[in-house]
């Protein structure tokens, strides 16, 4: 198990380094001069040279990379061109919106998907199953930003229950903040819940046919107890796998959804940074989001091993893992 952990951690570090190199390369090697992008084509040669020097663009690329990556490790993310303040502070301030938003949508997604999936599985072939899976099929096809708009139409325009857009901050108490995040979180959660419900359903159906579920029934457990206590835990591996994949979609989704609801989060910061040609901020946010995807995927791998220790063993002997 320790060997498995060490291998995974080493893999994690390598992936993080590789990802940061790729982000840096994409931002710096592709044709295009960041300084020129910032100043526009009307800039004079001297101001351009001054900005290039200030940004370290006159150094060799590998030195620029080390400067940037080393800074990241120390928590120094560079200075935003637009705001003229440290990027780290900008990002930190936005996390107060994006993290609760992401957490809320994961909770909503799982909270919807597991009961729906299990219910559909236990009513396989019946009308309820067909209706729920039809709804899931629709849910997968709905663009989340459009669903957000439909929510605004219903809850803000027609019913007037929730604020349409904007974020009051956490200073006014927990409730107004959560209320402002509810519709955005739901918009992010719906398509994910739809996929997750389908995966849960098929995984539970498969597990329900296994011997241990029959044994559990034979020893007198109710169908409900056998499903929730025995089939569902065994169905969790595919469910957790998909949740791991979805995390990446979730992060990307915040970029869009925060713009729909004009929430002051990381996604909106990224979008504004792009519009304002604030390249260092773009680079930092992208590497941060990608890094968290890599970390979450490693955690998912570790979660497998916790759910099913045989997988860690298979990995050690050089088999499995690819599945």
């Amino acid at each position, binding site marked *: 198990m320790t060997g498995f952990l060490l291998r995974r951690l080493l893999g994690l570090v390598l992936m993080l380094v590789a990802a940061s190199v790729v982000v840096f390369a994409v931002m710096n090697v592709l044709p295009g001069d960041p300084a020129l992008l910032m100043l526009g084509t009307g800039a004079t040669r001297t101001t351009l040279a001054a900005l290039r020097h200030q940004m370290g663009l006159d150094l060799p690329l590998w030195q620029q990379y080390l400067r940037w990556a080393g800074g990241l490790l120390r928590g120094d993310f560079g200075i935003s061109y637009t705001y003229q303040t440290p990027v780290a502070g900008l990002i930190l301030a936005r996390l107060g919106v994006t993290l609760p938003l992401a957490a809320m949508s994961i909770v909503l997604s799982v909270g919807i998907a597991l009961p729906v999936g299990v219910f559909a599985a236990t009513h396989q072939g019946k009308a309820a199953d067909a209706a729920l899976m039809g709804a899931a099929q629709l849910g997968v096809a709905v663009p989340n930003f*459009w669903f957000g708009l439909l929510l605004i139409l219903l809850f803000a325009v027609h019913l007037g229950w929730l604020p349409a857009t904007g974020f009051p901050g956490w200073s006014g108490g927990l409730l107004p903040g959560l209320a402002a995040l509810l519709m955005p979180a739901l918009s992010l959660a719906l398509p994910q819940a739809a996929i997750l419900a389908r995966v849960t359903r098929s995984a539970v159906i498969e597990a329900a046919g296994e011997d241990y579920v029959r044994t559990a029934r034979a020893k007198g457990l109710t169908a409900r107890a056998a499903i929730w206590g025995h089939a569902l835990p065994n169905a969790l591996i595919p469910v957790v796998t998909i949740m791991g994949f979805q995390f990446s979609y979730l992060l990307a989704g915040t970029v869009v959804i925060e713009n729909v609801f004009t929430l002051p989060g990381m996604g909106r910061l990224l979008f504004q940074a792009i519009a304002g040609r604030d390249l260092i901020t773009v680079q930092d946010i992208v590497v941060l989001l990608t890094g968290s995807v890599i970390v979450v995927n490693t955690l998912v791998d570790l979660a497998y091993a916790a759910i099913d220790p045989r997988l860690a063993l298979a990995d050690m002997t050089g088999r499995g893992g690819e599945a």
Partner: protein
Amino acid sequence: MNLPRNLRVGLVLTLVVVGVAVLAAFWTPYPPLTIDVLHRLAPPSATHWLGTDSFGRDVLSQLMAGAATSLFVALIAVAVGAGIGIPAGVLAAVGGGLVDTALMRLADLTFAFPALLTAVMITALRGPGAVNAMLAIGIFNIPVFARLARGAVLSLLRRDFVLAARAVGVPWRGIAWRHLLPNAAPILLVQATIQFALAVLADAALSYLGLGAQPPQPSWGRMLAESQSYVWTDPLLPVLPGLAIMVAVLGLNLLGDGLRDRLDPKLRRER
């Protein structure tokens, strides 16, 4: 022929969307871009079936032209992904060893980047536009096809007819073209349909953010973004383009699921 229901519905929806997109190339009720301020924000009527937007442009004509844009971007994106991903996957499976490891780690790395996010980054750097949107979405289709092709080929390599072909000395190129690809084609086709649906969604998101096809080229995402502020007064305006996106994606997904059920009953498990 007794086709499964999801395949039938998916086929019909997809054909409708494709048909509309093709039709839009030759004919739309009005030129989609013609501004008519006298008839701005007109409700649906006999002259403008789905009404007009804030510039007086005919909504139906714009939706039709948007279908063409959207499908074209998605098509190229999937073609980029399949065109690079499938050969890479076959190479990894056949090459084995170091080639396999290197290619698959590269696929892992690409997978780690949230697709939409990096598409945002690429369009930010290279400027927004349909071509960059295709590229950005296409890059993230590469590992999907590479992994799938690799897995399919690995299992085919152990089959008797491939072993027999190798035994009689058919060169690798011949084996790949004649035995591996035709047998892996169904599963790749299913995935291509699903990826097509995802690409339509990704393109919609990019153009909603203003990073996809640029004006004056009509696109569903931008129609939605431009009409969003009319949700209080003319809710139909932002609702319609979203509906169009949903119908297109739903049709493609059903088509993919139906094809999967039909071509390979063993693969019925959800993605």
